[in-house]
């Protein structure tokens, strides 16, 4: 594969709480040399409330310990999606990048939509470590790699290996297209509409009755129904 194409890395810790251990680890010389060896050229860091602290840390890193990786940092941005899209593979321009996040549910959902190799590092100091539960589920569903503080390099290696073998959920077509809105009728969630109907019991009963009739009809003879539809279409 073409390893000459550059890669980008995004580190995000969310807006609510700081997460200094993660930020400190991604600017260690070991980490930077490791990702520089894989072809990463940019490292974007979303620092949230830790921005000032992170800037101070950055000042202390000499250029030769950055291994050519360009580090940008910002507190919070309204177009984080664009940063995520910038980590996607674009044939001829850049290879698969990587996103390292704090395992917040909002971030995980967004990364899944954008579909980029993803490493989640739960913050063990948050309320009863509830993010670890989600991180485990992510690993189980192959949505992301569950990394632990102190072992981020291994997790990133694993994520990059997973994307080469195609076992991670980042095989969406390039270039990036945002999910359709409104969603197609067949995929729409109708739970809440049923709930509104419970406020109008007569209407609910009527629609349930119609629905039961229809489903009974479909279960009895699906082929006939399809044929009927076909003939009706032709008649129209």
């Amino acid at each position, binding site marked *: 594969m073409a390893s000459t194409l550059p890669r980008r890395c995004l580190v995000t810790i*969310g*807006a*609510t709480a700081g997460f200094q251990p993660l930020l400190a680890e991604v600017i260690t010389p070991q980490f930077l040399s490791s990702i520089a060896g894989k072809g990463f050229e940019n490292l974007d860091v979303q620092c949230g409330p830790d921005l000032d602290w992170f800037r101070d840390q950055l000042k202390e890193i000499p250029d030769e310990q950055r291994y050519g990786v360009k580090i940008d940092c910002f507190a*919070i941005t*309204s177009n984080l999606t664009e940063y995520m899209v910038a980590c996607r593979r674009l044939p001829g321009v850049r290879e698969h990048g990587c996103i390292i996040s704090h395992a*917040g*549910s*909002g*971030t995980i*959902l*967004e990364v*899944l939509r954008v579909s980029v190799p993803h490493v989640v590092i739960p913050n063990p100091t948050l309320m009863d470590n*509830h*993010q670890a*539960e*989600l991180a*485990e*589920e992510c690993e189980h*569903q*192959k*949505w992301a790699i569950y990394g632990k503080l102190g072992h981020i390099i291994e997790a990133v290696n694993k994520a990059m290996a997973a994307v080469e073998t195609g*076992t*991670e*959920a980042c*095989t*969406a077509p390039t270039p990036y297209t945002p*999910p359709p*809105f*409104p*969603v197609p*009728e*067949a*995929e*729409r*969630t*109708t*739970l*809440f*509409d*049923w*709930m*509104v*109907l*419970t*406020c*109008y*019991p007569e*209407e*609910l009963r009527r*629609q*349930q009755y*119609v*629905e*039961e009739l*229809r*489903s009974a009809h*479909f279960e009895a003879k699906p082929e006939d129904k399809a044929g009927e539809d076909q003939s009706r279409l032709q008649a129209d």
Partner: protein
Amino acid sequence: MLDFFEVFGEDDFAVAFFFWTLVTILAVIGAILFVSLSWLTAFVAVLAGFVIFRHVSLRRERGQLRTGRGWVTKSDPNSAVPDTSGLPAVYFLYVLGSGGHSAEMIETIKQKFCGQRNQHRRYIITSGDGSSLNMVKKLEATISDAYPDERAGTRDVFNIKRARAVHQPKCTAPFTSLLSAAHAINALTREPNLRPVRQYGYQFKYPHVIVTNGPATGFIVALVAYLLKIFYLVPQNRLKTVYIESWARTKTLSLTGKLFLHTGIADMFCVQHQPLARAIPGAEYVGQVTARLTPVG
């Protein structure tokens, strides 16, 4: 009293709430001083009995509603989807929390949205939560792009005081909770400005469905809604609460989830992961309503 008006702005309902709270407290103190203890005990017992009776009967009604057709999460192309476009009003109230909760809620709304003229949406945001407000603005921009005509429906945003700020001491939390409860009453009962009663009748006066997914504010709003229903202060076929456990909880319930489950105030208690649904009796597995994920191939 003047200060109250400055704090609440236009929220006259909240001012009335505090006025009546004050009157009640004075009445109770008066009762303790001048009425015999047996009368007071009798009064409290009758009140408690009434609340319990209403709670049980509300839960029983709910059970009857659930029989018959099973709830569907995603519409099946072969089935008649629930059609709400013919109803006089469709009014949703969404309670946004912070960070992840809001992001999930916005995604849930996107997954359920369809353009209809007869809909109104109200968002409840805790005061000072700018990022949630931005998310709502972004969502509303998306909706009006997709539906430039009247099918986008109407919407408004209500602010609610946070029940407990991040570093607020615990001893003052009950008072701020009371304040957010007062704001919640206002948000639940104020008619939308764009759907005034004199034009639309009382169809848009109260929300049909309250959707919340885990912030503490959601519980306060749902509790206030339930109390309003218990004391017959709102029509009985309004203010149905749907609690959706956060997508982040796969095996255990969150604190708000436990509160909703044990008090039983939600008309529907939904979870989004199978292992959690198996572990919690009474929880409805509705699939991943916040995320439409392409299967891993």
